[in-house]
């Protein structure tokens, strides 16, 4: 995480700045009036602002949304694995499994383990939101969502050998 430094500009407002991983130095002035200045500092002279844009509070919010939107989605992906005991996992269907060649519905996975299949991966292709009629083949990967215990059970279920 970049270290953000804060400087008071008497009579103007507050300036925050940080150095990006790329070496670019970026800053924002929050004026007492509510306007924001977006600053990009000169590469060779860190004292000099080479580019600046003056934003109204509304425009600043739009810019923040644009910049923040993408990171929010990424964060959400990260968070999903940690939130409220919910887990995602990728489970293989073994060649010897009794469900190889059978419909997904035949596994009764949701009933037995509480785990839902959200996609089937086959030969580098994804089949999203598979229905109960979706046929599983040996070597497929099933992407599942559920509790950690449920996923454990589902993993065994998918690899149950033919009896």
């Amino acid at each position: 995480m970049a270290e953000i430094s804060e400087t008071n500009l008497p009579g103007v407002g507050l300036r925050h700045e940080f150095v990006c991983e790329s070496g670019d130095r970026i800053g924002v002035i929050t004026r007492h009036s509510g306007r924001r200045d977006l600053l990009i500092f000169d590469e060779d002279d860190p004292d000099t602002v080479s580019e600046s844009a003056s934003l109204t509070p509304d425009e600043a919010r739009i810019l923040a949304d644009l910049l923040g939107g993408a990171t929010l989605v990424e964060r959400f992906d990260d968070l999903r694995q940690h939130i409220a005991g919910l887990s995602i996992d990728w489970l293989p269907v073994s060649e010897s499994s009794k469900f190889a060649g059978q419909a997904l519905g035949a596994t009764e996975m949701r009933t037995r383990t509480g785990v839902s299949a959200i996609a089937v991966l086959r030969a580098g292709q994804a089949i999203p939101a598979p229905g109960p009629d979706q046929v599983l083949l040996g070597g497929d990967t099933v992407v599942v969502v559920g509790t950690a215990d449920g996923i454990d059970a589902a993993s065994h279920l998918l690899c149950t050998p033919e009896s």
Partner: protein
Amino acid sequence: MLAASPGAADLLVELGGILLVLAVLGRVAGKVGLPAIPLYLLAGLLVGEGGLVELTAARDFIEQGAQIGVILLLLMLGLEYSGDELMSALRQNSRFGALDLGLNFIPGLIAGFWFGWGLNGALLLGGITYISSSGIIAKVLDDLENTGNRETPVVLSILVTEDLVMAFYLPLMAGLLIGGDPWGVGLEIVIAVTAVVVSLVIAVRFSSQISTVLSDRSAEILLLTVIGLTLLVAGLAEHLQASSAVGAFLVGIALSGPVEQHARELLAPLRDLFAALFFVYFGFQIDPRDLPDVLLAATVLAVITALTKFATGWWSAARSGIALAGRIRAGTILIARGEFSIVIAGIAVASGIDETIGPVAAAYVLLLAIGGPLIARVADPLSSNLLARRRAAARVNA
């Protein structure tokens, strides 16, 4: 319906005419990137005593408007920085402020004695050469988009300490100008300084309470409250033989917190109107025919104090770890003198110390209000060229 006397009609015509002239001048100034203040001053010179046209009907109104203009200028100076900003500038940057005071006050002081104006006149000229124009500097910073630069906090902190020095300087001068026996003057000064300290304490300690009491959702009521309070305190200060300007300034310092920001936005257009009248009125009082005689002296003083201001900015920026280009910018932007030099000059003219003090101050402010921003504008690309050349040299070496 209001009965319009012929006098009133003349007043409206003259007042409207002069405001329109100021508007045109301001527009021209904006086009060429100059502050409007020196042009307002020139307009005043041309329509006043010994000028091209002489205003008659509007003169009294402009004189009264000018008084309100000074009061609003100082109220806004007090409002410009919060109590916390003043205190932190005092704690962190007092050495820059001390250097600024020493380098820029002393040349004016010496020149004042050289002109033979006595101690009071010399102290007033010292004040005129000392104080930079925060109005002009703020505008130049915005125009050149330099507000975000690293040297800008240094420049601003110097302006904040000047603000603080004014808080003690103005009451001190008010006390000295009343004159009389040393004990009486001493007492006046003690009272004035106490008032300043009390205002500062109020600003720092009770800002949220003041905001709660004064703030009102209605902008109109806040405007009336602040203006009413300021005029009242200014008038009372004048009665107590302190200057009305000092009273207004103290109100500005004491007001802080959220109400401060709101009041600044509300008062800015009003200040612009009356301050313009004040600059015109100051020009009025000066006979343009007196200017050539003092031009040489004023120019020498302007050149010396431009250099001392430059040195102040340069050294302060260097001590703050700013590189060459930033030091040049910090030094040049501080050169501009403007509204507050004219306020002090106005006090000097009103006190009648010497009849040359007005023309000298006018010529001095005209030179540096025009010259300061011009130098800053020239220096800005110059310093970046310097940078580009160094960069190129560095690439060749690498």
